[in-house]
């Protein structure tokens, strides 16, 4: 049994909460006491509302909207699922970016009565930007259009524009009614014309995280030095394999120092292993006594990433105070924390049209392309190649708050964008 993380994109109006509620309900993942609490609340309002299963906080119950990312879990005999529920309103790009950052699959919800709308585009663009490979086009509320096959096909055809624009390679359209339970966990009796999988069947079959296919990356989180009588000289580099695999005997380079050594041992739970793969947590011991500390990267000598103090990146700005060029930050590249400056905002991305707009500043929820300089070189990859070594956050030095999500676009100045605000160009 493996694990799949997925995000649901859509608004309250698309029936997103009802969809999640239905998945939990029909897969028998709702416990009796929670059902009882729901029924007592539902009774006051006339019926049981599956959407209440995903409403966590007081404030949202008062306002009737989801205000933050919430996580839900269910398990079938084939898989454990982690659902990230991110709100779909325009102003909450920040939440969607957060939710999409960990997801392997995105369910893009469309109301069958309204078809592909602006929001559908925006959600698809953000999910693709964050590197999600698998998409479900969930055409919901089919009951309200008489389960009409033509309505479904028209929506699927309309979505083709987005598929092409974003070069999506795996989009599975499914007609459904979350409210009635059609094609969620059970095949619909109302849509015999649809012969594809229901939603749960598809979620069980889609490939999960494939971090082992990327180049090997490992960052040191913590140095284990027992300094005991039995182990006076033991030095183990504890960390998580971010991607790819590592083998005992690999010739490796340590970055940013560039020192070379050989992997003497890989330990998992104090047992030596021949090979370890992402995302396992391991301790690596090297044959040579080299100076290594938290944040350093250890990579096989034939898979060395760029070492750079200048990057081009896409940021999602997440703070109330607007971003202006010239600011300084702490840049957290997983275990590496370095000082950074942001000399240039190149352009703002319109997440509706993909147009590049001139930008003096970035406001909350804006997505901008920027240049960054770091005080210490980073061992970094473009996000398109590696979602782990290609991602970072910016931290405000004063408050300590996370103010931006960063996706590395280019680590080599030869591939930097020449600023051309207004031009339509986009790549994912």
């Amino acid at each position, binding site marked *: *049994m*493996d*694990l799949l993380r997925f995000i649901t994109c859509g608004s309250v109006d698309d029936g997103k909460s009802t969809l999640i509620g239905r998945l939990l309900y029909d897969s028998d993942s*709702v*416990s*009796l*006491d*929670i059902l009882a*609490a729901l029924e007592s609340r539902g009774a006051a309002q006339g019926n049981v509302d599956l959407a209440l299963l995903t*409403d*966590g*906080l*007081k*404030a949202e119950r008062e306002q009737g909207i989801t*205000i*933050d990312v*919430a*996580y*839900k*879990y269910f*398990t079938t005999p084939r*898989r*454990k699922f*982690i659902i990230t529920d991110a709100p779909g309103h325009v102003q909450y790009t*920040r*939440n969607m970016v*957060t939710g999409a*950052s*960990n997801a392997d699959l995105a369910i893009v919800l469309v109301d069958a009565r309204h078809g592909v709308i602006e929001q559908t585009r925006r959600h698809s663009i953000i999910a693709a930007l964050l590197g999600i490979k698998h998409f479900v086009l969930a055409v919901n509320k089919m009951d309200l259009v008489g389960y009409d096959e033509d309505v479904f096909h028209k929506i699927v055809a309309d979505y083709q524009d987005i598929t092409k624009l974003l070069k999506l390679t795996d989009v599975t359209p499914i007609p459904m009614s979350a409210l009635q339970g059609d094609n969620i966990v059970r095949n619909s009796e109302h849509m015999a014309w649809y012969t594809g999988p229901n939603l749960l069947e598809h979620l069980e079959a889609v490939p999960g995280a494939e971090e082992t296919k990327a180049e090997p990356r490992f960052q040191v*989180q*913590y140095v*284990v*030095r*027992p300094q005991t009588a039995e182990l006076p000289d033991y030095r*183990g580099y*504890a*960390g*998580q394999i971010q991607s790819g*695999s590592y083998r005992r005997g690999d010739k490796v380079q340590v970055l940013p120092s560039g020192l070379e050594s050989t992997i003497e041992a890989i330990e*998992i*739970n*104090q047992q030596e292993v021949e*090979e370890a*793969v992402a*995302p*396992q*947590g391991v301790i690596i011991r090297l044959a040579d006594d080299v100076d290594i500390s938290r944040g350093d990267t250890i990579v096989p000598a034939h898979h060395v990433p760029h070492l750079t103090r200048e990057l081009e990146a896409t940021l999602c700005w997440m703070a109330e105070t607007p971003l202006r060029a010239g600011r300084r930050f*702490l840049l*957290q590249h*997983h*275990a590496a924390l370095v000082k950074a400056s942001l000399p240039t905002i190149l352009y703002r991305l319109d997440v509706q049209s993909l147009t590049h707009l001139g930008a003096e500043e970035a406001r909350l929820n804006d997505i901008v392309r920027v240049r960054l300089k770091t005080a210490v070189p980073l061992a970094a990859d473009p996000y398109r190649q590696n979602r*782990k070594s290609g*991602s*970072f*956050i910016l931290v405000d030095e004063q*408050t*300590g*708050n*996370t103010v931006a*999500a960063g996706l590395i676009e280019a680590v080599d100045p030869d591939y930097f964008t020449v600023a051309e605000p207004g031009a339509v160009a986009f790549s994912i």
Partner: protein
Amino acid sequence: MPTLDYLDRLEAEAIHILREVAGQFERPALLFSGGKDSIVLTRLAEKAFRPGKFPFPLVHVDTGHNFPEVLAFRDALAAQLGEKLVVRKVEDTIKQKGLQDPTGKYPSRNPLQTYTLLDVIEEFEFDACIGGARRDEEKARAKERIFSVRDDFGQWDPKRQRPELWNIYNGKIQKGENVRVFPISNWTELDVWNYIRRENIALPEIYFAHERQCVVLPGGQLLGLTEHLHLDADDEIVSRQVRFRTVGDATCTAAVASDASTVEDIIADIIQAKVSERGATRLDDTISETGMEDRKRNGYF
């Protein structure tokens, strides 16, 4: 190439989080109750840091309303691990601060734990406290971050949470603030039990079916008989085969009728039972529908 199943992935995520705590903080602590979730955390800490020592002590906030088996287990485990155990008692906080010890029939000291916890954080200047809370326990927890920043009053503000992206955990804090860290956030009750089975982790006996004198509550729930309850003459006392699904303040942690005497039995029980852990056994959450959120805002774990 090794293939990883979902427990391997959950384990890897938790180990990564524990090592981030070790790497980012000066004075972390692992909050240890003797309950199954915190016992699982100690196993994960062994996997994260051995052959080294844990870079944090185990800290128990003792309500004084514990089951004796659990305290004995706590001490034995700390000794076996060879790690430092710090115990601070709610009893002492009540005396020092002149607090009102809860009265009534089922006097839960859970609300008072907050004071003792904040005091122990101040005493040792802990900057990060690792806990075994899970997002599936209660609705309010579903939105909790893995690194959850608290102000000097321990308060949690759901609207001011930091966004948490990829597996990057931001532990940057200002003076007076501290972070609560939840490495098994993404685990469910069933995941925890499956892991206990796979890793062959020992637990206090009260988790397994045993004969116990219980008080029958008006709602039919069973409460283990202890000296801390103030019973009326007409209260119904019965002897039942029960087990506990969580260990907490004995005055508000109900037992469930069960014959499950092994981990396998319990897993089968959970799959069948479908009553979520907190709902089945914690009385204090039912006071108001938003019980947990109110307590979290006030600095409870």
